[in-house]
């Protein structure tokens, strides 16, 4: 081969490879996260702060840190109105978007979660239903693509009973006490019932289950029954307008509000404000703090709101459901970051992010680095345990704001986990899943 031929060959190669290399280089260093939101419809008062918290945290990561290890986060909101059919449509529309497809999906509705569980496993997109959705999916051996940490409805119910026992002066003091569970008459609302029934048998309290049909704007008859039963404690698993009406009704019958506890979807600002003074003393379970007293909020103001990039009004920062959106986004980001430790600092696929979720170990020092020490609790996820069985704390409305009034209350894992594992087998078999051997994945 002559020198001339070599030169021509080299030139041709350069001409062909140059644009290709440039194309590879030009591929955006971005990861896409679909956001299923409900800013409209009857549940918008709850959906808006959650969506704002989510978007603001992603904006913060991009603005303050330049993305996750240099990979910018991109997202697109899709309006579900909290409707399952629209949620599935949104998922189908967005799952392939972005250079590597959807990194994960947060369904933000138990109904949508149930529909996405079989789809996401096929599409290899991890479903992150933080504190909602199918409780049984916490068993990662049966549901490798679903994550519902930091804790589930069943665990929450056990922590609520433990808290009531604490307030009464010990578990044995619950014997003979009357507890009423008022629940949204839907799969979500009924989630806590089996756990409460089990605990009623074990601890000897008298449990009454009262269903309220959706939407629940008229529930006077339910509260007349409560008045007749005259319970020591009420636990509320409501949603939307049902919550605010329940709080008003409880105040109306003169029930002591400090013995009325809502689950974490029944204790937001929107649930208490309409009841005015009557809501004072009402309590709620939560896995994160309310308010703006954390470094992450200072960062949100500095890097997001002061630059005019906030998703909502500045006054909304720190609301209970806003903070939930922030926590949800943070856990998603940390799962992506964990996945990068194995797969490199590049845009990752859903399958790669799934590994990050399953190996997430969010420690106290890491929370401190994130400006969230005390805001939420550490989480460790494993192949078997996608819940983490994190503790729950309790907040109380003082008429103007929510205040934390308890330590972290541990859940009753000995009660919940065996039932959860049995339910996972049942639910897994319904979907023709087989059990994973986690020992082989370590």
């Amino acid at each position, binding site marked *: 081969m002559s020198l001339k031929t070599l030169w021509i060959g080299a030139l041709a190669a350069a001409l062909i490879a140059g644009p290709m290399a440039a194309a590879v280089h030009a591929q955006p260093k971005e990861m896409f996260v679909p956001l299923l939101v409900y800013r409209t419809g009857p549940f918008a008062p709850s959906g808006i702060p959650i969506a704002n918290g989510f978007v603001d945290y992603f904006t913060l990561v991009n603005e303050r840190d330049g993305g996750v290890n240099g990979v910018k986060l991109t997202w697109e909101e899709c309006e579900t109105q909290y409707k399952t059919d629209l949620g599935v449509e949104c998922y189908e529309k967005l799952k392939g978007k972005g250079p590597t497809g959807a990194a994960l999906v947060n369904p933000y509705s138990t109904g949508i979660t149930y529909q996405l569980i079989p789809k996401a496993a096929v599409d290899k997109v991890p479903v992150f239903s933080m504190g909602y959705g199918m409780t049984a999916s916490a068993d990662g051996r049966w549901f490798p693509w679903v994550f519902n940490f930091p804790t589930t409805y069943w665990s929450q119910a056990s922590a609520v009973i433990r808290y009531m026992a604490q307030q009464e002066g010990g578990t044995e003091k619950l014997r003979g006490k009357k507890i009423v569970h008022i629940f949204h*008459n839907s799969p979500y609302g009924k989630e806590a019932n089996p756990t409460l029934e089990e605990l009623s048998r074990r601890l000897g309290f008298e449990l009454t289950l009262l269903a309220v049909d959706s939407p629940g704007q008229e529930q006077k008859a339910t509260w007349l029954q409560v008045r007749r039963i005259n319970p020591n404690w009420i636990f509320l698993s409501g949603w939307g307008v049902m919550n605010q*009406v329940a709080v008003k009704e409880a105040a109306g*019958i003169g029930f002591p509000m400090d013995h009325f506890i809502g689950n974490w979807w029944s204790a937001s600002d929107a649930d208490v404000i309409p009841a005015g003074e009557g809501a004072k003393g009402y309590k709620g379970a939560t896995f994160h703090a309310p308010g703006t007293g954390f470094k992450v909020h200072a960062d949100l103001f500095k890097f997001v709101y002061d630059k005019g990039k906030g998703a909502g009004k500045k006054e909304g920062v720190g609301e209970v459901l806003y903070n939930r959106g922030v926590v949800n986004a943070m856990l998603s980001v940390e799962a992506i970051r964990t996945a990068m430790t194995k797969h490199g600092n590049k845009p990752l696929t859903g399958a790669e992010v799934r590994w990050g979720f399953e190996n997430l170990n969010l420690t106290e020092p890491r929370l401190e680095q994130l400006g969230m020490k005390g805001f939420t609790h550490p989480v460790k996820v494993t192949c078997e345990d996608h819940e983490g069985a994190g503790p729950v704390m309790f907040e109380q409305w003082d008429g103007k704001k929510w205040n934390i009034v308890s330590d972290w209350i541990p859940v009753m894992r000995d009660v919940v986990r065996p039932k959860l594992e049995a339910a996972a087998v049942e639910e897994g078999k319904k979907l023709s899943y087989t059990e994973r051997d986690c020992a082989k994945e370590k």
Partner: protein
Amino acid sequence: MLEVDGRFFVLLMSNGILIGLMYSLIALGFVLVYKATDAINFAQGEFVMIAGFVVAVCLVAYGAPLWLAVSAGLLGMVGFGFGLERVMLRRLIGRPIIAVVMATIGLAAILRGVGPLTWGAETKPLALPISDEPFIVGPLFIPPIQLLGASVSLVFLGVFGWFFLKSRKGIAMRAVADSQQVAMAMGINVERYFALAWAMTGVVSALGGVIWGSMLGVDVHLSLVGFKVFPVVILGGLDSIPGAILGGLIVGVVENVAAGYVDPYVGGGTKDFAPYVLMILALMIRPYGIFGKKIIERV
């Protein structure tokens, strides 16, 4: 076996009656429009919601005194009713009934979007200067807000009943509803009476918005009270004010008895569908309702 406790039964009945009268107030808005214009307003719940938003925003955002906020709500809704008739509904006069039905369904969707978009989706309190302490009289347990709501309903049901039966304008409105052509031939200004009917619906919606808004808080959920209108007016009769009262009472009582005695045994669910079972039965047995005119056309 259903356990019947007399005291509890009385409580459920009294609550059903009070709530039923409050449903009647919302149904009255529906009946007024039907009675005068032969049109079916599927946006009644959304009218209530918009009225609630106006009053709550005046109270919360502008710090207006209650009388001013309620006046703004009343005037706003009267203006809204007039405007709606002028801009949209007048163009539909003489068109098939389905055109008005579809227009009001569309209007409902628009209002559900426009309300939160304009005033924010967060729940707004609408506090009335009345105590939350219930009146306890023997076995009765009566929340003041319900007593107020029921009283307002009765007063306005009486006023509008008188208006339609005794006043010249009311009789003219009935004539318009019977036959627009004949009414025109008799020299009645049909368009003016249509506008008046929608304005009256605005007044009723504003009152409903204040009463229900103070019970539920004001957000897009408030429009859901409109769903209760349908069993109420089908049972009572689409064009009958006494029918709205009776229909409301039946729905209120049935809901409460179902919630108190059936729901605990079947795990819930009967309270909300029981009125619709009655509604279907009414359509099968007496399709024009208890007090309705036999010629009523349904859609």
